């Protein structure tokens, strides 16, 4: 081994090609090996709303520490299709290496690519067809070349193939292992012999980590917190929530029902919640729009359901596979009439899990809609996290009456007036009880009423919940330097980018505080207070109108201290971009500071 080899501490790889080329498989297997080598991994996908074809990419970061975003510096770009090179060239720099399929001819360093990019042409497709009569094996062939380049051991590659393809039967495993071997021979021909890799990568028996997406973590949190019925309608990028629950919820004693549309999904959820069952649905903007009447019903009729919004680019059908955070207004303000609601915004998969637990507790105790505000990036990107400590899960159900408790009361009113605004609840089936639930204005018994005195009391009762729940709402987390006069606010997939940008700024001697708000509605005093203290706050969001910034300002945030950094082109931000935008806004030149 040569002495100049670096220990691998940060590796960023893009694998791109036509949809169906197997880019995602390459990234997943690579993630698995690097995870085994003790690194944290984060993967992202850039796909189109079609089953096959079109240029798609999967991106991986392996990092010695926690990073929930892809770096601005791409080390390796693998292109199964030369068309992909043009699409992603802008992400490369002079230190990047490009492995491309040269089956249709070599490319010269075309002017799209930065100068000095190392180009390695390998006839992947030609060899796949030659050896296996099927183009599909080109990704396994490419894997050997990638592995050799970065310094994976042949044995480690083989083992991870056994793990990955073993489940698909002996035949599939054999062909893929053969393809790996063909790839190793090709690597030898391309000057990438064993031991010539760029990094030194040792597999280690490090602490086990979970590899999980935000959607999976929300689904898992729902199940552990006692969620027992999920009703949903498939819609990208929320569908993985349902997919995970289809597999797991029955093992928890629960049930998943795929509805005919979102109107049905939210109303199935209502029917389930009415029986005293913890219930959730998941969708994204268009689905929230369709569910809106049902969400108002949850508020008015006082029914607790958790609604996951995996936000995607809007408006309307928008860009279904691309990230955005443009439903914030819809979640906080959407619907006819005044009704209480909660909007929680996790930043990491671990928070997706624990906020899902909180969301279910709040929904049941306060009997109202609780939104989980995610975005395509947080929902679908995979990240390694420390194993979730399940002992931290606490479940509370509010004033739920069983037969005995009901019998000890002189009177049972479904909508009794209380200090907190939340009423007692005897689930249907509870002997000795009867009760009425309705979305019409009603008296304490649930009988329809338009009496003005009762009306005022009922409106106030529902509104009171928004105050009484405050002690239980997830607080913002502060990262960085608490006295800094540069601040960041951002939710969901902004989390990882903001933290990395803060590290890059710190290297320049610029210190910042990240106020990671986790309850968007009701907006807690902590956030306007932060905007009053910190003089240069950047609210980073994926939408065109600064919805989060405006929400904060509407709640007393100090407008003169806030500026927005917005992105709505469907492409995830990178830390360096964010840093340069911040520098520009601060009127600082990159070379003016340390």
């Amino acid at each position, binding site marked *: 081994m040569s002495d100049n080899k670096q220990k691998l501490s940060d590796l960023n790889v893009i694998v791109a090609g036509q949809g169906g080329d197997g880019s995602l498989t390459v990234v997943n297997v690579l993630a698995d090996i690097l995870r085994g080598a003790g690194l944290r991994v984060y993967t992202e996908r850039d796909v189109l709303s079609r089953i096959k074809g079109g240029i798609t990419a999967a991106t991986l970061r392996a990092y010695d520490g926690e990073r929930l975003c892809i770096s601005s510096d791409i080390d390796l770009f693998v292109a199964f299709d030369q068309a992909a090179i043009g699409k992603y060239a802008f992400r490369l720099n002079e230190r990047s290496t490009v492995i491309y399929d040269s089956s249709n001819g070599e490319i010269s360093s075309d002017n799209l690519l930065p100068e000095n990019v190392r180009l390695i042409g390998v006839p992947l497709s030609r060899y796949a067809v030659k050896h296996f009569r099927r183009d599909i094996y080109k990704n396994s062939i490419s894997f050997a070349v990638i592995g050799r380049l970065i310094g994976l051991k042949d044995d480690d590659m083989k083992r991870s193939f056994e793990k990955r393809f073993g489940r698909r039967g002996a035949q599939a495993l054999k062909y893929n292992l053969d393809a790996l071997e063909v790839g190793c021979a090709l690597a030898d021909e391309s000057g990438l012999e064993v031991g010539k890799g760029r990094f030194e990568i040792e597999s280690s028996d490090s602490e086990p980590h979970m*590899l999980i997406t935000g959607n999976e973590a929300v689904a898992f949190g729902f199940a552990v917190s006692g969620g027992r019925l999920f009703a949903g309608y498939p819609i990208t990028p929320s569908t993985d929530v349902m997919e995970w629950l289809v597999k797991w919820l029955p093992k928890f004693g629960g049930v998943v029902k795929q509805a005919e549309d979102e109107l049905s999904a939210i109303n199935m959820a209502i029917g389930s919640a009415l029986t005293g069952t913890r219930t959730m649905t998941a969708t994204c903007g268009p689905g929230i729009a369709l569910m809106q009447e049902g969400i108002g019903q949850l508020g008015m009729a006082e029914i607790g359901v958790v609604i996951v919004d995996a936000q995607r680019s809007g408006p309307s059908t928008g860009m279904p596979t691309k990230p955005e955070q443009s439903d914030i207004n819809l979640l906080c303000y959407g619907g006819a009439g005044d009704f209480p609601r909660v909007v929680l915004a996790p930043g990491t998969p671990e928070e997706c899990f624990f906020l899902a637990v909180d969301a279910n507790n709040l929904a049941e105790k306060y009997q109202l809609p609780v939104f989980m505000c995610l975005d395509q990036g947080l929902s679908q990107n995979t990240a390694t996290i420390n194993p979730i400590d399940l002992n931290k899960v606490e479940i509370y159900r509010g004033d739920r009456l069983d037969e005995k408790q009901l019998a000890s009361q002189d009177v049972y009113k479904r909508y009794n007036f209380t200090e907190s605004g939340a009423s007692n609840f005897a689930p249907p089936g509870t002997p*000795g009880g009867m009760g009425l639930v309705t979305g019409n204005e009603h008296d304490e018994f649930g009988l329809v009423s338009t009496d003005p005195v009762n009306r005022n009391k009922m409106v106030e009762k529902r509104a009171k919940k928004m105050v009484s729940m405050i002690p239980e709402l997830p607080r913002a987390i502060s990262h960085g330097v608490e006295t800094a006069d540069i601040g960041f606010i951002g939710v969901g997939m902004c989390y990882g980018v903001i933290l990395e940008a803060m590290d890059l700024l710190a290297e320049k001697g610029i210190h910042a505080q990240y106020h990671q708000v986790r309850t968007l509605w009701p907006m807690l005093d902590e956030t306007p207070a932060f905007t009053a203290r910190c003089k240069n706050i950047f609210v980073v969001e994926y939408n065109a109108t600064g919805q989060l910034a405006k929400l904060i300002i509407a709640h007393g945030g100090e407008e003169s201290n806030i500026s927005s950094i917005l992105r709505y082109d469907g492409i995830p931000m990178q830390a360096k971009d964010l840093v340069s935008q911040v520098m520009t806004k601060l009127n600082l030149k990159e070379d003016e500071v340390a």
Partner: protein
Amino acid sequence: MTKTFTPARPIWCAGCGDFGVLQALVGAMEELNIPPHERFVTAGIGCSGSLQNNLSCYGYHTLHGRVLPTVTGAKLANPELTVVGVGGDGDGYAIGGGHLMHAFKRNPGITYIVMNNGTYGLTKGQASPTAPTGYQDNVEEDLDPVMLGLSIPGSTFIARAYSGQPAQLLRLTKAALEHTAAGGGMSYLEVLSPCVTYNDTYRDWRTSVYDVDEEEGYEPTNRAMAFTRMQELREDGRLPLGLIYTGERPSLESLSLNMDFVAPALQDITKPDLSGVCNDALQSFIK
């Protein structure tokens, strides 16, 4: 005994067909000894949508048109309840029409009673999906929900009654509840229930109804025969009543729920099985 709500007096016009439906539903549930706390009665929007207020039960007033998804969710969550959905023809066939075919197809263990009067009474008499051509300014052909139900292979119980014939109405309501209680899945009962104010059809319907229960040779287990007879009677300008079709298919909940557990609504969820299934799920992410 704990005091709860006192069932309200119906808000319907004197002579409304819905009185007959209420009476039959209460009578059938009493005859079948279904105690009030086991009744989960859900009503849609419209005049019929207040029925749950008028009997002893756990009642729910849905959004307009959403009776069927609501009762499907409720039944999956707690199959031990007697789950009854009621509504009008506007609620069930217009704004909620899309859900009807999926409910037939799914066959959840619920009873669905539609009070069909061919008009939107609560909004003063607009044509509903079952209004005949020529009613108000209706140029469309009327919808035949019974034939719709028959056309969906998953349907297991289809009946029609007339609030002007209370004995048959009671019998069919009971039969519907029994079909569902026996695990047969969804029972669908349409009740011709005239609106005396905007579409008083008592006189017409008295003469045009036709009872297949009384027809010799009619086999309600024969879907093709049922469909053919419905079409013939329609062409003759008749309104078929009776048990029109009954078939066998397992209920949705029997096919969907994990029977190793009690109903989802009845599980004690406050102490999750951390070392069992929770840990299995966690380990699946570690691999």
